[in-house]
């Protein structure tokens, strides 16, 4: 079974997982550090978060192989929610 597991994990999905873990650790670092510009840091965290969301959708949920309408619905969701949250954050100012 170990050989089968290694064969299954030797795949792009595992690389995506590594990227997601690395992005989480980077976001954690940006979010906890005393950044000179916290507003820019938070905006960067938002962008990284929605890149992660997109990777989860396309690779884990396999939406990259889904019919175009479903994929576009998901891509639109990522774009609209990310943009809306960023605009709300930037227009509200820093706490």
């Amino acid at each position: 079974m170990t050989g089968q597991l290694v064969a299954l994990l030797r795949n792009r999905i595992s690389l995506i997982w590594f990227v997601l873990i690395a992005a989480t650790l980077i976001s954690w670092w940006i979010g906890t550090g005393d950044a000179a510009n916290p507003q820019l840091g938070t905006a960067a965290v938002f962008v990284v978060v929605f890149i992660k969301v997109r990777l989860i959708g396309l690779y884990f949920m396999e939406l990259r192989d889904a019919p175009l309408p479903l994929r576009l619905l998901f891509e639109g969701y990522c774009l609209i929610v990310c943009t809306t949250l960023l605009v709300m954050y930037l227009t509200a100012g820093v706490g």
Partner: protein
Amino acid sequence: MSTTVPRSSGTPGGSVPQDRHRRARHVPGEVGAWVFILGDLAAFALLFGVWMYYRGMEPRLFADSQAEVHRSFGAINTLLLLTSSLCVVTAVRAVRAQMHRLAQAAIGLALVCAVGFLLDKVLEWTDLVANGHGPTTNNYFLYFFVLTGLHAFHVLIGMGILIALVRLSGKPSLSEGQFSFVEGGACFWHMVDLIWVVLFALLYLMH
């Protein structure tokens, strides 16, 4: 009568599907499952907006309250859910390749991660309440407990689905409907992961 599980790109005899062979376009799971998933995603998007609205109304209170929350709890939970998602993806690929025992083991590992998530969450809630930060303390903690509680409820539903998938993935052959349930159940679990990734940023990381 069961039909053969639709294999994405593998060859008969349990070979491992390779990503370089792109699958024919298909909806992963049943269409009904996607109506539910997209509806849930829309509902959470609305809640993210509500959170941002109230944060904008009381930025100082939200910043001060957020300083009372330990980010490590949220970060560990993110790592646990991402790892559980990898396990679930591996399980679906194992089912396609007819590696049933491996599929069951992978889903079992995802369940262990899910239990770890809930334990972490309970520890965090207990710690906050013990330090005088309950849902009635202020708007930050009200929405903190509502959003994390609602998400934890989704984790519980997802765990129920994963338990059903353990049973299904052990079958020597699956009907197309059963395989759709496996794919749809896996997508629900990834949605739980996806929502947490956003919540982690909103509740713990924003400045």
